[in-house]
């Protein structure tokens, strides 16, 4: 008799009898096809470095030594982005070509871009005072009238968490949601810490975490995606040709 496996259920493979979770297969395939976690983490490191550099005020980042450090960093970044990370992913996980955009998605994207080109400026002019007023209120609420607290990472985590809220949730989506919730809690805690600890705003660590929030967000998201892949896909059994 046929088993009644559905798109939401599991089946088993005949060779090992291990259960096959079709949702896991889809999730992992889309994840590898969409992005490479280490590249996102690398981009986050660069952002963090740029954001936090003003706080550290290291004097070796200026002058000829600073220029050399930036040059070496840029070369290493490009090399890692273009060669080392893609090659590592290819060897470690294999290769997946992401699905092409459907005609409907392409038309939607094109329409959005055209709309932004024509109406983006007047719309942003219209909303800008409202957004600044709202942000001003939020800053006053967290006892930060001078607007030193960087709220952008908290908003970003909130947006990511909200976009993942749907029902029913698969196991891997639940894990991601928990991670996003944890990230949201951490960054909101950093933002509101000066309310309880008035001296926190003067601490170098808080300043770095506050300024480098966007970079840290990218690092955390990239490493999470990478860890998900490492856990989902076992190491390659044999080297050499693929067959």
């Amino acid at each position, binding site marked *: 008799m046929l088993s009644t496996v559905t798109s939401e259920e599991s*089946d088993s493979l005949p060779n090992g009898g291990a259960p096959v979770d079709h949702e896991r297969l889809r999730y992992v395939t889309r994840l590898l096809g969409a992005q490479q976690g280490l590249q996102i983490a690398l981009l986050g490191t660069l952002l963090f470095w740029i954001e936090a550099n003003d706080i550290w005020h290291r004097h070796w980042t200026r002058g000829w030594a600073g220029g050399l450090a930036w040059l070496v960093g840029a070369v290493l970044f490009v090399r890692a982005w273009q060669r080392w990370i893609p090659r590592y992913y290819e060897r470690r996980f294999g290769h997946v070509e992401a699905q092409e955009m459907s005609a409907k998605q392409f038309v939607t994207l094109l329409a959005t871009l055209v709309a932004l080109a024509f109406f983006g400026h007047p719309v942003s002019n219209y909303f800008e005072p409202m957004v600044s007023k709202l942000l001003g209120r939020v800053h006053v609420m967290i006892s930060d009238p001078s607007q030193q607290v960087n709220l952008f990472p908290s908003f970003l985590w909130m947006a990511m968490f909200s976009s993942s809220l749907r029902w029913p949730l698969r196991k891997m989506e639940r894990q991601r949601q928990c991670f996003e919730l944890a990230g949201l809690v951490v960054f909101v805690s950093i933002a509101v810490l000066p309310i309880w600890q008035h001296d926190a705003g003067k601490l170098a660590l808080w300043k770095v975490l506050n300024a480098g929030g966007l970079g840290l967000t990218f690092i955390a998201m990239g490493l999470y995606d990478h860890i998900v892949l490492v856990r989902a896909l076992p190491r390659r059994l044999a080297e050499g040709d693929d067959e």
Partner: protein
Amino acid sequence: MNDQHKIVPSPNRLIHEPARLAILTVLSSCASADFVFLQKVTRLSKGNLSVQLTNLEQAGLVIIHKEIFDKKTRTTVSLSKRGISEIDAYWKIMDEIRAHMAQEKKHRAPGRSVARPGLSPELAT
């Protein structure tokens, strides 16, 4: 005709085999995937995966492409147009079967509480 007795379509047996179904599920989520990824994600042995891919290719459900990449052979697999329609149809049929079985279970459920002839109500429950 009563809904309970309507004929339920049977799924494609070639696709219904778990290993092949896993391969097709992966391929339906991307444009193409290489042999290494398919092996890792489905956790099939090289031999088994190779046999299953050959079967699927012979059935016209997948397209296998070989190329030299970084001085090594890379085998890339993608779904054919027929494969895309067959896997979609398969999941629709499976969902239909599932809905049918749920309905049947619902119809049967009240009968369970009814005492069988010759048994006392306590034993029947």
